[in-house]
């Protein structure tokens, strides 16, 4: 035991260091995300959420009803019945996806030759009736797609029907089109990977 260490011990240096550390933690920002009534987590682009169907630039559904996704799905949750539409193209007459069975593996997205089905960012879809979770073609076309830039916390509010909606800067730009832009962060200094800035030691 050296003298300097003992002298510091009588002057409470170890206690002082402990108290200084907790003071620094006291003055730094809390890491809590106040979900769902004030903040919402924006998922990364690679996040595997609920599957959605895409439309091409002529606002026509991309899916050609080849049934590759239905055959590769390990949970057998997709039902596709193709038909010939008025323009002579092959399209799906029935496209049903059972969310109760889907395990979000992404194999349907990998195998699709038209890039028509992909896994998006839809997160909050709890319902009271489990039959509401079998989605048809129209519902799948309206689901939100992948986020352009994720990994941040944005201000949000809780709407009726258990929907946590992010507050974007211009309110018309809601979750209307797919591949959405939630990148503007108006949250208090919370950009991408904001937790890396919290001081630790």
């Amino acid at each position: 035991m050296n003298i300097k260490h003992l002298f510091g011990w009588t002057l409470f240096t170890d206690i002082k260091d402990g108290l200084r550390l907790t003071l620094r933690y006291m003055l730094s920002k809390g890491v809590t995300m106040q979900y769902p009534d004030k903040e919402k987590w924006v998922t990364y682009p690679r996040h595997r959420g609920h599957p959605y169907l895409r439309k091409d630039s002529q606002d026509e559904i991309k899916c050609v009803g080849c049934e590759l996704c239905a055959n590769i799905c390990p949970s057998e949750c997709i039902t596709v019945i193709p038909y010939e539409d008025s323009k002579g193209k092959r399209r799906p007459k029935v496209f049903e996806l059972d969310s109760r069975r889907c395990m979000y593996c992404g194999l349907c997205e990998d195998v699709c030759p038209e890039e028509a089905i992909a896994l998006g960012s839809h997160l909050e879809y709890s319902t009271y009736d489990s039959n509401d979770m079998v989605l048809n073609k129209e519902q799948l076309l309206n689901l939100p797609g992948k986020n352009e830039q994720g990994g941040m916390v944005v201000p949000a509010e809780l709407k009726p029907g258990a929907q946590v909606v992010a507050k974007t800067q211009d309110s018309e730009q809601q979750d209307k089109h797919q591949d959405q832009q939630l990148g503007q962060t108006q949250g208090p200094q919370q950009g991408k990977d904001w937790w890396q800035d919290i001081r630790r030691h």
Partner: protein
Amino acid sequence: MEFLVVFLVMLAKVIFLTLILFILPIPLTWMERKVAGHIQQRLGPMRTGWHGLLQPVADGIKLMTKEDIIPDQADRLLFKLAPLLSLAPPFAVFVAIPFGEPITIFGTQVNLYLSDMNVGLLYILGVGGLEIYGVIFGGWASNNKYALLGSFRTCAQLISYAVPMGFAVIGVIMLAESMNLSQIVIAQENVWNVVLQPIGFIVFFIAGLAEAQRIPFDLAEAEGDLVAGYHTEYSGMRFALFMTSEYVVMLTISVLCVLLFFGGWNGIWLPLPPVVWFMLKVFLFVYLIMWIRFTFPRYRYDQLMTIGWKVLLPLSLLNILITGLFFT
């Protein structure tokens, strides 16, 4: 007629003080949870009211509506008596405490104390020793051998830390040449006692933390380790009374530290009223106690007793020796 006026003023002061001491633990619980949250890098209560300000109200409603369970073979009278016995002595201590210089209300001069005893400090130390009875009664009346053992340990802790607490204030009494608390504060007008008696302050503060059973000395309640020591079997409002008494004792320790060592209501370079200075200093001490709570782990029981007898008592005697040799 004169007697009636004096009596009414005294009654008003008693009622006012009792109300404040009952209501003050409520915002203190909120402050404790917020300080705990921010030290642990989280936010604390945020939803009940603005930033959780209605959380104590929710806690109060919960405690009042809980079922009142009395164990089967427990001693019913002692079981019901123990929380009250634990609550009364901290309130009785506040009888001798002055809160500031006399102020004038409606033309009459009102002293800010309930009783200006010449042996005020001795009274406080004596009545403070009565807090042990609530612990003993609670542990015995629970009909639970672990609660009984918990109450033994708590009782031993309280008794063994009351000794250095008493010795630490002897230095203060020597400097002020009086046990009257108002005199002690007046004697600190030029220099606070903490400058002249640092060892005395440290011994008193640590012994006070142990008397209030706060971390790092809260082995008896040890929320998370043991079940809860002597107040295991208590639920609902009886438990709330035990917790209230713990907060009032913590307030007592803060008030005593401020009065005896930090100049009471004497202020530095800000011309605030003395009562405001007093409350500010007490608030800082309460904050310091809460800060210490969430920084340090708790002591094991043998370490606790070692500190009480083998470290604090010799230090307090050393303090008396140094004060006697150099300062008087």
